[in-house]
């Protein structure tokens, strides 16, 4: 399994850290001159770029949050005039203003290189025929993967978003060997495969890379077995680049190698903002080291992970981050129990016949939290034996109680009534008044 850039991806840590320090200092010196937003933050604390003398000193720098980028809409945080910017993308902005990001020619070149690394780690070679089901447009996913795949020299099919039947037809006719898209795309295509009674073996698909929303290990197992492929996770965040920030290696799934020569990553306690040591879970904070158009310092991603800098069997020395399953503000308190939606998904998807599309509706009745969990199940199950349905409801209810301490009403619904969402947190419908207000502050 090829390492795209062995010189960097297997670089001894001491050399890598020197490179990071040089790039961090150069970025700070440039930002000081050219980004008024950061200049002001520096001046407020009396900090100067030369005070950052080691990588540890990065914690002295101010954190940047999504609201800062929103407030700068569209171009206030750009470090260069627009004539140097050759590409502009924007993040989705599920609620509120989207954030705008820009790239110079060098930024694009770096982006392609980084995605090429991530794709290679996931099994890509130039002989692949890569089908991209991400929507081509302002979002960074489609173009990011497209560039990286072209960089590798694979045959890229920019299908963009489309009905699963269409994706499947192209996959069969064009003999795609790889699928890059959301995990839901993969599941939908697998469903279509089943519906049309097409044997999995008739596909040429070898591997898949999925992201843009967290997906559990259970979902990975489903995708891998339904499509007969190796599926890897990657981490993308448009505010610092898009895809290409980190990705799993096939040898050792579960940890995503971070492209540390371009991104300096820290993990902080979301409450105290204190930097946490490797191994401890917290909020991922990213500083760009080479971005020219939009350099970002200590961006709070609101994604939960932990960092592992130990050597990986694949030979890469780049540190790994744990798969992101939750956001810091995803945490719910229902009936006194603290939960992440990702945990609910994990429990539900362990049961055979359950599709990973569910909804949790939380009401307050007479001062007590009342929870209803609606879950999609396959058509066959719903039209079949009522006894079986009841057994499944009971099973799920018991599991939620036993594993998570959550007492909930269960309602099994037809496939495709709930459908995919961009983020597990969107599966929660919280109708309680007290918590409801706080939750809408997010995103």
């Amino acid at each position, binding site marked *: 399994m090829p390492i795209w850039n062995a010189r960097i991806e297997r670089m001894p840590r001491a050399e890598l850290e*020197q490179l990071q320090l*040089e790039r961090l*200092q*150069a970025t700070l010196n440039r930002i000081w001159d050219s980004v008024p937003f950061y200049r002001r933050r520096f001046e407020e604390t009396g900090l100067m770029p*030369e005070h950052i003398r080691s990588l540890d000193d990065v914690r002295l720098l101010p954190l940047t949050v999504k609201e800062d980028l929103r407030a700068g809409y569209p171009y206030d945080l750009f470090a260069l005039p627009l004539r140097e910017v050759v590409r502009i993308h924007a993040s989705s902005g599920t609620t509120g203003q989207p954030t705008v990001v820009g790239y*110079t020619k*060098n930024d694009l070149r770096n982006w392609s290189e980084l995605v090429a690394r991530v794709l290679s780690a996931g099994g890509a070679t130039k002989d692949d025929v890569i089908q991209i089901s991400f929507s081509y447009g302002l979002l960074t996913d489609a173009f990011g993967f497209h560039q990286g795949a072209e960089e590798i020299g694979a045959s890229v099919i920019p299908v963009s978003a489309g009905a699963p039947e269409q994706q499947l037809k192209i996959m069969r006719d064009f003999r795609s060997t790889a699928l890059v898209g959301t995990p839901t795309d993969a599941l939908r295509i697998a469903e279509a495969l089943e519906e049309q009674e097409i044997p999995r073996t008739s596909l040429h698909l070898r591997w898949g890379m999925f992201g843009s929303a967290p997906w559990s290990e259970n979902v990975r197992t489903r995708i891998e077995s339904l499509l007969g492929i190796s599926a890897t996770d990657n981490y993308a965040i448009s505010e610092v680049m898009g895809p290409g920030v980190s990705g799993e290696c096939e040898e050792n799934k579960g940890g995503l190698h971070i492209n540390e020569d371009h991104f300096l990553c820290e993990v902080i306690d979301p409450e105290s903002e204190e930097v946490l040591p490797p191994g401890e879970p917290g909020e991922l904070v990213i500083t760009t080291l080479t971005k020219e158009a939009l350099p970002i310092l200590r961006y709070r991603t609101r994604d939960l992970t932990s960092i592992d800098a130990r050597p990986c069997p694949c030979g890469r020395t780049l540190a790994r981050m744990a798969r992101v399953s939750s956001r810091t503000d995803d945490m719910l308190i229902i009936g006194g129990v603290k939960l992440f939606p990702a945990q609910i998904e994990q429990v539900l998807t362990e049961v055979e016949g359950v599709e990973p599309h569910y909804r949790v509706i939380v009401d307050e009745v007479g001062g007590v939290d009342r929870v209803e969990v609606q879950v999609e199940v396959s058509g066959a199950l719903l039209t079949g034996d009522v006894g079986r349905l009841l057994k499944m409801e009971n099973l799920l209810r018991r599991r939620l109680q036993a594993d998570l301490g959550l007492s909930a009403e269960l309602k099994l619904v037809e496939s495709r009534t709930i459908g995919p969402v961009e983020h597990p947190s969107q599966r929660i419908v919280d109708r309680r008044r007290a918590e409801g207000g706080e939750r809408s502050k997010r995103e």
Partner: protein
Amino acid sequence: MLTVRSADAYYGNVQALKGVSLHVSEGEIVALIGANGAGKTTTLRTVSGLLSPRRGSVTLGDRSIGGLAPEAIVRLGISQVPENRRLFGLLSVRDNLLLGAYHLRWHEKRGSMRTDFDRVYALFPVLQERAQQLAGTLSGGEQQMLAIGRALMSRPRLLLLDEPSLGLAPRAVKAIFDAIPQFRQQGLTVLLVEQNARAALQIADRAYVLETGRVVMEGTSLDLFNQKEVQRAYLGRGYRQVWEED
């Protein structure tokens, strides 16, 4: 090979370098570009020992060299070709070269000097032609070649070149810059300071851009060529070098 971390350097009370970090790996040609007064020569002098870093570190391999005497640093394999050549004008070309090997111990020199001379003459044949001529009577380009040759006689591992193109006619600049990449084949690593950013970027693997004592950009030569700021500030967009037409 060479690692500089967050180096601060002062001339008296004036801070000339502010947190400068860079590295040069074995076999690389790395350029430092920037305007006059940016701190390029100061950086070289901090490496060669003519200046001590007040804060930060300079390391050669595993060994800290910040604060060591310049002659000790020469013995460790770093030679600087100073700005403006600084030749001994009243000595012959050959004697200037010989002086470059001054610090080598007798047993290191004995029998092998011929090879050292041959190496320099192979790079710069004109020096052999003018071996007996007084250094002060050479042309600008020839003097620069002699200065470089003198540094090579000390058998360095790392060569620090300070503004080799300064004051030279385009053809001489071309000759010098054609020779520098050949040093690599002789196992030499080069850190090159240049105001002529275009010439430097054409032969360097990587470069750092200095502005008022700080590194503001680093990357491969290609990265920097593409950078509009670099183009505008240092490459004189639209300016064509006469010798590029050769």
